[in-house]
């Protein structure tokens, strides 16, 4: 079975995000970029499926600028077999990404598609669901466990009330939650070898998709600074403060 994994280049999660002084966008100059952490989990899961003999090939795909090839190479170092780069300098929205991915799915015919449940840049949590709608494939989002049994996919999902288990027919779409697995560190020799693995560059035009933005970004504001909290000595003091200072209970 071929597994397709979609990954995204985002601001490194350790970086403190700054807004440009004209509030037009987040400031990306000289900012460290990395693979979206949920996508790392997706790559890890695909590689584990390959190690278990369930997957035969792992293909990673990203839609983004030339520099995003660094994240594809990272995925190749982690164990993916080949990469597809849909190159664009446009700001890619969930629907645009889903449309491009739908074309790739059509071409590659994977048995399983794994995506992160969201990317930590804009936290939209949409691409996987939209891809499922566009391809008409079943979806298991927020996965904390994935198993292929008798040609069917069992996905344990993290939902508000606890855990839910779904059984999906393949091919299917899975989006990863944090507890699905703990991604490994790439083996250094594999990082060196990643350069030799195939990486195919495509354009939105040759896929026949339009990525131009339909959403206009008007203004970006950092969240309001919060006052430092205090430690209270006792439950009584807490109740007193909630009643008399915060006035949230009576």
């Amino acid at each position, binding site marked *: 079975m071929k597994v397709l994994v979609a990954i995204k280049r985002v601001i490194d999660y350790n970086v403190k995000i700054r807004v440009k002084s004209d509030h037009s966008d987040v400031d990306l100059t000289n900012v460290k970029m990395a693979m979206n952490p949920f996508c790392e989990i997706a790559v890890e899961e695909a590689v584990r499926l390959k190690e278990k003999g369930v997957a035969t090939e792992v293909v990673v795909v990203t839609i983004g600028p030339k520099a995003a090839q*660094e994240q594809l*190479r990272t995925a190749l170092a982690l164990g993916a077999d080949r990469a597809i780069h849909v190159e664009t300098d446009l700001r890619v929205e969930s629907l645009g990404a889903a449309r491009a991915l739908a074309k790739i799915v059509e071409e590659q015919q994977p048995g399983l598609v794994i995506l992160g449940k969201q990317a930590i840049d804009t936290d939209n949590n949409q691409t996987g669901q939209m891809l499922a709608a566009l391809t008409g494939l079943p979806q298991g989002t927020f996965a904390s466990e994935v198993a292929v049994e008798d040609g069917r996919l069992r996905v344990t999902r993290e939902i508000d009330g606890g855990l839910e288990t779904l059984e999906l027919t393949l091919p299917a779409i899975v989006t990863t939650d944090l507890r699905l697995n703990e991604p490994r*560190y*790439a083996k*250094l*020799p594999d*990082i*060196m070898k*990643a*350069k030799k693995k195939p990486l195919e560059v495509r354009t939105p035009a040759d896929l026949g998709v339009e990525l131009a933005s339909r959403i206009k970004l008007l203004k970006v504001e950092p969240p309001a600074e919060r006052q430092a909290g205090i430690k209270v000595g006792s439950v009584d003091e807490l109740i007193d403060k909630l009643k008399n200072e915060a006035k949230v209970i009576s």
Partner: protein
Amino acid sequence: MIRDQETMQILLDSIRSFVNEALIPREEEVAETDEIPEDIVSQMRDMGLFGLTIPEEFGGLGVTMEEEVNIAFELGRTSPAFRSFIGTNNGIGSIGILLDGTEEQKATYLPKLASGEILSSFCLTEPDSGSDAASLRTTAVRDGDHYLINGTKRYITNAPHAGIFTVMARTDPEIKGAKGISAFIVEATTPGITIGKCDKKMGQKGAHTADVIFDNVRVPSSALIGENEGVGFKTAMKVLDKGRLHIAAIAVGAAERVLEDSLRYAMERKQFGRPISDFQLIQAMLADSKAEIYAARCMVLDAARRRDDGLSVSTEASCAKMFATEMCSRVADRGVQIHGGAGYVSDYAVERFYRDVRLFRLYEGTTQIQQVIISRNMIREAQQ
């Protein structure tokens, strides 16, 4: 020389994440237990950290000097004990075999060193021979197609864990000094070897050194590195020459870590109603440290690039080792100062780093020995 910028960036990012997420959170545990946890060792093996400098044909990464120092900048940002554990296989424990070993010696040992299956140690120093290494007394007397090794080696890093030792010993007692010395690969299981108790060190808990005592240790003549007598001292000096740039880079990394910690502390700690980073006297310490680290980093990179270009860097490597390690101690001292009383108690990493980095100025040639090398080279060049 960096062979491929993009690949190197991924490699450095990967090592940085490993240092930040896997190693830094375990520093205190290592300091308390005086042990590198087994799960960390196996992660380091899986990643291939033992074989950075060993060529690809023997299962390593075969990094260039410039690549190596960039990696060392990253590894230097955590407790030197972690680095020390992988350090001998990447450095003094393997380079002798790599530079001067026979093809058979390389094929036998380098793959095991690259994978971390075995550790290695470098046995030069003795109780009565430190800086004056050429005066060493350990003997290797030829006995048919074997040698009998006798002597005591001191402060040998990773000796309690080593599978093989590179041992410098005198094969010709008639020749005093360097030319009577040969280098051997001695397997740790050879009868007659005793490892002393671990030394109680000032810092770098988790990294172990001990005496290695050779009592009539019989090794085959194939254990002689390069199967050549009398060139062992040259081998040892070549090993140390390369090691100096590595240590200098580690010192830069450690200084960067201490400065990061100190800056964060200075911005959080309030006195006189303001963060202490508002005070110019604190700012001066931060700025001096920053500039010195930058200088050392540039020196290390320059020397590494020259070495990759095939130039002799004896002077530059000694300059870099001397400046970077002395600088690191100054930065650590300022780090403690910026932390105030908190810098003297072990709740903050700076107290530990202050002790850990002290070693850099002593081993692989003390600062004074670097000065001797630099000035001797200068005078020799001026005489020509």
